[in-house]
């Protein structure tokens, strides 16, 4: 896709991104993000001046891909330690509010 030039995000765009990011935002934040994200996105526009025609993206810093280990059983942390920081737990499980019914 081609160049994208953004000076300021619309309030609708900010709300959409905030939803994707799972962030509740205040009206003041909506306004600030609209401007600040616009500034940052405008700044990074300068990358379009760098010729990347036919260049592969750097997907692994030193080309180490598919690092595998032996398929051996390990002793896991254990339920007590896994749950030690849980905000709320019940019957050795993480307890959360209801999932069904949300939008």
């Amino acid at each position, binding site marked *: 896709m081609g160049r994208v030039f953004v000076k300021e995000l619309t309030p609708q765009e900010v709300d959409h991104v905030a939803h994707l*990011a*799972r*962030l509740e935002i205040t009206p003041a934040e909506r306004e600030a993000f609209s401007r600040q994200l616009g500034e940052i996105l405008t700044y990074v526009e300068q*990358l379009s001046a760098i010729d990347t025609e036919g260049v592969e993206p750097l997907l692994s810093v030193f080309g180490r891909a598919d690092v595998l280990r032996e398929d051996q059983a390990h002793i896991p942390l254990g339920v007590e330690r896994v749950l030690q920081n849980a905000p709320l737990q019940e019957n050795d499980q993480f307890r959360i509010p209801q999932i069904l019914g949300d939008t």
Partner: protein
Amino acid sequence: MRIEDLSASELVDSIAARQVSALEVTDHFLGRIEALDKELGAFLSVFPDFAREQARRVDAGQVTGRLAGLPVAIKDNMCTVGQKTTCGSRILENFVPPYEATAVARLRAQGAVLLGKTNLDEFAMGSSTENSAYQVTRNPWDPSRVPGGSSGGSAAAVAARMAPLALGSDTGGSIRQPAALCGVTGLKPTYGRVSRYGLVAFASSLDQIGPLARSAQDCALALDVLAGLDPRDTTSSDAPYVSGLQADVRGLKLGVPRSFLSDLAPDMARVFEEACQVLVGLGATLVDVQLPNLSGALAAYYIVAPAEASSNLARYDGTRYGFRAADAPDVLTMFKRTRARGFGAEVKRRIMIGTYVLSAGYYDAYYLKAQKVRTVLSRDFAAAFEQCDLILMPTTPSTAFKIGEKSSDPLEMYLSDIYTVALNLAGLPGLVVPSAPVGGLPTGLQIIGRAFDEPRLLSCGHAFQTATDFHQRHPEPSYQS
């Protein structure tokens, strides 16, 4: 000689020779923290009892090793088992890791004594350590100024001699920039040199742990212990690491990207040039190198780093650990409200940028483009290293700025990383050694090497420090007691 005047290497030797006990050394540094840190705010937590217990075990001969009895401070984004790890964030306010970061475990396995955890910009996102949810850290050279960031707590702790060695992490300059602004020596190793296991992830393809200390020699001592493959981090490298310092730069060709440095302020340019000439005086030669796309590095960084951060920080949702907004009627609201209350402004801003550039329709224009620019930058460095052995650059565009000076303008703050971010994008190692002060404030010479060439980098820094005394200068913050 006072205990705090000894280098890390000298302390280890003195303890081994039983000229001083590990407990005396630990007590001494705990005393300095007690006296100085109310003003400086370098530490988020201090473990007096735990530290003394570790020191006693060294004195009793129960713990031995290459760092036996050496007190160290750890940036609070590395997991310490049984000790809080907050990342400078409300969202991890009460988080006690059930496991230990490999870097921390390696230090402890060699007898190092953990003093405490140091302050940072929340989740290491920042260049001033003003973005911590808990406190501002002050520069020991001038408490009205920032120490740099995000490893500002570690840099300030070493500069004020509250710890002889500290660990930091560097995603875009977070070890090197505060090292320069606080007048200490800091090493960002090659990506993969040090395991990232247990380092709270910010941008996984850029993050790297490294030491801050008083000299290249002390950084080498630390890297000897930190370096190596870790099965728990698949990006850690098995590239051979040969320790050993040589204070000899004769015949070395040092590249200077002059065209990129034309904007440097006159005073900063002068001290950079003086530092280069010190190495010339020791027998190195300077060559002009071209890094034609370096000016695009910061823009690429501010796509890649927030993108990866937005993904890494998705885990903070109030479910398994950390802060949870307790008043949410359903789980989606719990996620959103937890994150809204748990994260600070800069972290939210970066999550928003990262989410935007990865969102449908924008991925190719931003993230993919930036990843291609990383390849271009890597090629630029590779071409430059065909003409030279190491590259020299300044570390920062200015000395330490005033607290509050840049906090209202995110983009202005980002520009303080202009000379450091390219190394992270290309995975290369960089060492910062103190160079001549400007207006009484420290500056740093940045020495950049080929991947996995830390011994040469450290040797060059060591040679520089045999011919200069900038690394031995230190502020004398006053005791309040």
